[in-house]
């Protein structure tokens, strides 16, 4: 954990320096008190100090951080990327089809192999959500080219 803390700490330090420098260009304080730059600068400074503390913090390792075995790492990355693709795809081809695809893919990744379950659950999920939200609750859902 100590190594992870150092990397995160350095990352956060760089982030806070960036925020501070960007905020430095904002309109500064005037006669009636602090300006737009005040709050970002103060918080970035505190974050910077805390991240330095994190860099120097020693923390005992409480077991492995990532529990995945080598063989299933591609599966996990696949799930991760499919989630991102899903979010990008929804406004393009619409919620309905993309939802069927992503839920089918996720269940497949997580070891469900029975096609009846895969197809019926993913279609049912999409249908139920669309009907429940759009027609029963009047909550809009994102649509695209393919509904």
């Amino acid at each position, binding site marked *: 954990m100590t190594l992870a803390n150092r990397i995160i700490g350095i990352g956060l330090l760089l982030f806070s320096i960036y925020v501070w420098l960007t905020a430095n260009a904002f309109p500064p304080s005037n006669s*009636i008190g602090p300006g737009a730059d005040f*709050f970002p600068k103060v918080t970035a400074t505190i974050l910077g100090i805390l991240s330095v503390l994190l860099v120097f913090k020693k923390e005992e390792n409480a077991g492995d951080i990532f*529990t995945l075995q080598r063989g299933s790492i591609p599966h996990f990355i696949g*799930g991760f990327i499919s989630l991102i693709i899903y*979010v990008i795809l*929804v406004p393009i081809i619409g919620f309905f089809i993309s939802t069927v695809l992503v839920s089918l893919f996720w269940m497949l990744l*997580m070891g*469900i192999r029975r096609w009846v379950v895969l197809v019926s659950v993913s279609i049912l999920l999409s249908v139920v959500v669309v009907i429940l939200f759009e027609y029963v*609750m009047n909550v809009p859902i994102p649509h695209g080219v393919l509904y």
Partner: protein
Amino acid sequence: MDLLLNGFAQVFHPSIFILIIAGVIAGIVIGALPGLTATMGVALFLPITFGMDPVAGLLLLVGVYFGGVYGGSIASILLNTPGTPASAATALDGYPFTKQGKAGKALGIAVIAASTGGLFSVFMLIFISPQLAQIALDFSAPEMFGLAIFGLSIISSISGGSVLKGLISGVFGLVICTVGMDPMTSYPRFTYDNISLLNGLNFIPVMIGLFAISEALVIMEEQLTGGKGFGKIIASYALPTWNELKKLWGTILRSSGIGTFIGIVPGAGADIAAFVAYNEAKRFAKKEEKETFGKGNPKGIAAPEAAGNALTGGAFVPLLTLGIPGDAVTAIMLGALVVQGIQPGPQLFETSSELVYTLFSGMLVANVLMLIFGLVGIRLFTTILKVPKNIIAPVIIVLSVVGAFAISNNYFDVFTMLGAGIIGYFMKKFGFPASPIVLALILGPMAESEMRRALVMSEGSFMIFLERPIALTFIILAIVSLVVPLIMGQIKSKKAKAINE
């Protein structure tokens, strides 16, 4: 009193009553599933309520919240895998009961303690909040700034294992909340010419991402590492007898008081309430009884359950009277109120007293319903634990996308949610608590605008915060709550070192 009776009349209107029932059941189910918390349940249910009228929508969420907090104890008791962080304390004495074949007794004690705690805290809420609102009416900018700072300091210092990581989460949230127009001059900050960023990051998508998407990713990881299958649940459904319960009332009432108090303090969550009450129950126990804690002492179930559920009513006190959420769930409730066009705060008791008292009556009813379902449905709720998690994960993802989009029909929010979800997953992995970020997103803008408003009042002099007694008190409390955990941490590690040597 009239207002409360009128509230009951509204609550028992079939359309609202059914929603409370649905909320409580859904809450228990969500809470019972290991990993899914009350916070996440409320976040996922939030978008459904947008199309409802305010009272109905809020009471549905209240049902999910109350049910979810109790539901966590089911998995704790039966499987020793706490459904929510708060119910980890319940597992200590609840699981030994299951091992002895007395699961029904443990579940019975849990639901009775939980609903008693819940009812107690709602009565306290009804009693305290109008008075507090009266006082808060006189608060102006410096006091509100002090309050926001106090809330922020507590959130960061007591949320989770590492004080430093809690603080980093909180301050990171404060930096993030400066995105958007400056509250005083409308100068665009960190918007990168993106119109969607002008009003800042919407905290509800951030919250859905941090609590729901991150959990879906964790579930996937668990499933890929061989998915923990649940063993056969040996359950007997015999309920506790009256004689067994009689010995618990003292513990239940004390824990309810502790839970309510911790709930009122902005920032502290159910997990803290549960563990404090557990330790107090142990401290109050007779010497020979102390030995039995952790081996199946009924008080060890009653205390955390009563406190965890008493927190719910307490957490509504600062939300309704001051507009400051008491914990992560009430932070979502704040979002629900604002979406419905209701601004919580001291004026709420004057402008929408009818709504407030209907909410109160609904909370009382929700607690009673929880007791009924908890006792009748034990058999049913134990079957929930058999729902395969590899089906739950995609459901969470899909509901998160719909939820994030529904808030303002802006797809940008969905990307915000995704980003927050990915960050949230890594935060979980590296031990950073998520709730400080969310509460910082709410309290940060408040702290900034109130501070600058106060400085306009004082023509730029910072002395205004020291000259006003209430503001000064809050600021001192904030400093104390930041410094004390750090010192305690130092003492603890020194002690640990001394023991090791």
